[in-house]
């Protein structure tokens, strides 16, 4: 039997991992959809229109599941973390209210877009998709500011365990907001791009190498590959802000047990909590100090700066951080690989990526890999903040519900999400039937 804290945290982990995948695809898909429809209108090419329609259908399913899993989260906030909500939900109320509004607008215009295909003029129809794309980005951005506030709470006055005054827009002014929002939105575009590219890469590996698949692959790939290097730059910014605002999280990300000058960058390895150091990691001397402070001998705060009770699970955070960075770096490498093909193609060598099996396999793996990186990144920020739910203000143990038997909810949630995931995969496989007839004969 699980204790309440573990049960509540695991349930939150499942619900958020499930939701974040759909939320992210819901943010990215409309941009691809608009691009394809625009090309279709400009060129009159039915293949582009067919792609746009297929993506609209996928967006509708994704949005519906995203909306359900989002509703679940709003309930879970109260059911699992009543003390946290009672004390702090006012502080990020504006973020959520704005998110609700952006989400509502997104929902309505997606409805217009979806049912407007044969009812509106092509260009008018295209415009109904614009608020969907903008609303998706906005709602994801707003909700991320609430999380940024939990990482760096600012703008509130507490008295007797109660907020007595608050700046309504405090979450937007939290120092963590800028990098977190940018990182999240880029992640949404990156993950969607690679997920879409992966679908068509699998289709090509199965022998469907028509123009429909080539364009589907190229559209997703370009979005993902452009986002990847930008994400490296934003990630670097994010890490620097983490080092300033939450040095313990930074130390956990790098598995740095002791505060030291000239700290190394550690890749991999398993953290030995007793000794306060990583075992079996590859160390690049002084690289962490150099990266964080542009000075190879700069002092970096280690985990020993705070008592053991105030440290997160280093093993989890360090592994997830390396996983995220590793996958991100692999995407940049995939970009270089793509550029190389493109350059050879321009030089006159006939290179068709649709014939390059290993390249297609790499792209096919890129889809799930992007989702792994996404969830790993989320774990870094959430587990890395532990034992705090609101950094330095409220511990997660104080936030959790004291209602007996939360583990029942956890098992129920795990069972339901498994059922939903299985059905969804069956369903999406049914939709992915290759190019529609009108696009092939065209």
């Amino acid at each position, binding site marked *: 039997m699980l204790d309440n804290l573990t049960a509540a945290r695991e349930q939150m982990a499942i619900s958020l991992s499930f939701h974040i995948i759909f939320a992210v695809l819901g943010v990215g898909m409309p941009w691809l959809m608009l691009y394809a429809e625009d090309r279709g209108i400009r060129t009159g090419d039915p293949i582009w229109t067919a792609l746009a329609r297929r993506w609209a259908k996928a967006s509708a399913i994704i949005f*519906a599941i995203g909306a359900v899993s989002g509703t679940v989260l709003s*309930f879970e906030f109260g059911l699992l973390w009543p003390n946290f909500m009672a004390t702090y939900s006012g502080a990020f*109320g504006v973020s959520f209210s704005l998110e609700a*509004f952006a989400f509502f607008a997104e929902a309505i215009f997606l409805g217009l877009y979806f049912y407007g*295909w044969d009812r509106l003029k092509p260009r008018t129809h295209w415009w109904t998709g614009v608020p969907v794309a903008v609303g998706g980005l906005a709602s994801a951005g707003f909700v991320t500011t609430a999380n940024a506030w939990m990482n760096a709470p600012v703008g509130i006055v507490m008295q007797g365990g109660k907020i007595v005054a608050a700046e*309504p827009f405090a979450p937007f002014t939290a120092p963590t907001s800028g990098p977190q929002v940018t990182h999240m939105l880029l992640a949404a575009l990156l993950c969607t791009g690679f997920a879409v590219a992966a679908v068509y890469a699998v289709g090509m590996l199965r022998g469907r190498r028509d123009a429909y698949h080539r364009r589907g692959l190229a559209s997703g790939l370009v979005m993902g590959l452009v986002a990847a290097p930008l994400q490296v730059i934003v990630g670097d910014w994010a890490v620097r802000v983490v080092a300033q605002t939450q040095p313990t999280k930074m130390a956990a990300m790098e598995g740095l047990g002791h505060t030291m000058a000239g700290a190394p960058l550690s890749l991999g390895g398993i953290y030995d909590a007793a000794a306060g150091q990583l075992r079996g990691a590859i160390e690049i001397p002084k690289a962490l100090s150099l990266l964080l402070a542009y000075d190879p001998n700069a002092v970096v705060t280690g985990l020993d700066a705070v008592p053991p009770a105030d440290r997160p699970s280093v093993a989890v955070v360090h592994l997830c951080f390396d996983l995220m960075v590793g996958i991100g770096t692999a995407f940049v490498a995939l970009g270089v690989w793509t550029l190389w093909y493109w350059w050879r193609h321009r030089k006159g060598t006939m290179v068709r990526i649709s014939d390059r099996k290993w390249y297609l396999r790499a792209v096919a793996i890129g889809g799930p890999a992007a989702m792994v990186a996404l969830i790993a990144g989320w774990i870094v920020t959430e587990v890395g903040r532990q034992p705090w739910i609101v950094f330095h203000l409220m511990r997660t143990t104080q936030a959790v519900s004291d*209602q007996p038997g939360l583990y029942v909810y956890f098992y129920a949630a795990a069972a339901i999400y498994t059922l*939903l995931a299985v059905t969804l995969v069956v369903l999406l496989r049914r939709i992915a039937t290759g190019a529609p007839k009108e696009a092939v004969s065209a």
Partner: protein
Amino acid sequence: MWEANHVWLVFVLIGLFSAFPLAFASYSRALALPLSLALLGIVLRGSAFVFRQYGGNGRLARTWGRVFAVTSTITPFVLGAGAASVATGRLAADGSSGLLAPFQSPLALCAGALAVSCTAYLAAVFLCRDAERVHKGLGELFRTRALAAAVVTGALAVVTLIAAATDAPLLFAALTSRGLVFMVVSIAGGVLGLWLLWRRAYRTARIAAGLAPTGVLWGWWLAQYPALGVGNLSLPGTAAPPAVVLAVGIILFAGISCVIPALVVLFRVFSRPPA
């Protein structure tokens, strides 16, 4: 495609926890079981809707169709029962009354049943016109069901009111004094809806039918305000700092006033025949 219910629900929940954090937390604690069951219903119903729509005609779609039917009944029942249990004023704000407490009063059970029959009635009334446009016989089918549901709902409403007199005497007293106007509106809406349905005036019947539950909800709100119904809390006492309440209020108001016209456009485009 998506369910407007979820969007509204998210709106309501977010509005509540943003502006009245303690009210949200107290309801979550006191009504843990009904809310969890509602959540279960919402998740399965929402997913069943999507899976059924895109799942073809096979066994998968049929199974999810059944899930859809069952969960569509559970959700209004537990929400109705949970809301009514608040009116009894017997629930503790910290959840110490126990998980089952919200269901342990005749009023809660009656209100749960009332909520189910009321949603069935509303759905049938709203579908009459659309069904008639598709096929005359289908419209008649929905009309018969709407009439039956109306009679059941009316009977349950009377029973619930009697239960309220004993289970929630304070609320009952306020309903029949402060909230009387709304109760009259509700009863008028119910009777009028029945009559319009009988006359096959489906469009106006929709409005009349909508008045019945709306009247009850407004009357209830007026009768109960400012008590939260759980513990001794009052709504203003659970509010976030004034600046936040103001900002959230402005955002929600501005949001709704942008969203409603867009929703109207959506329904217009939707009812337009495809080119």
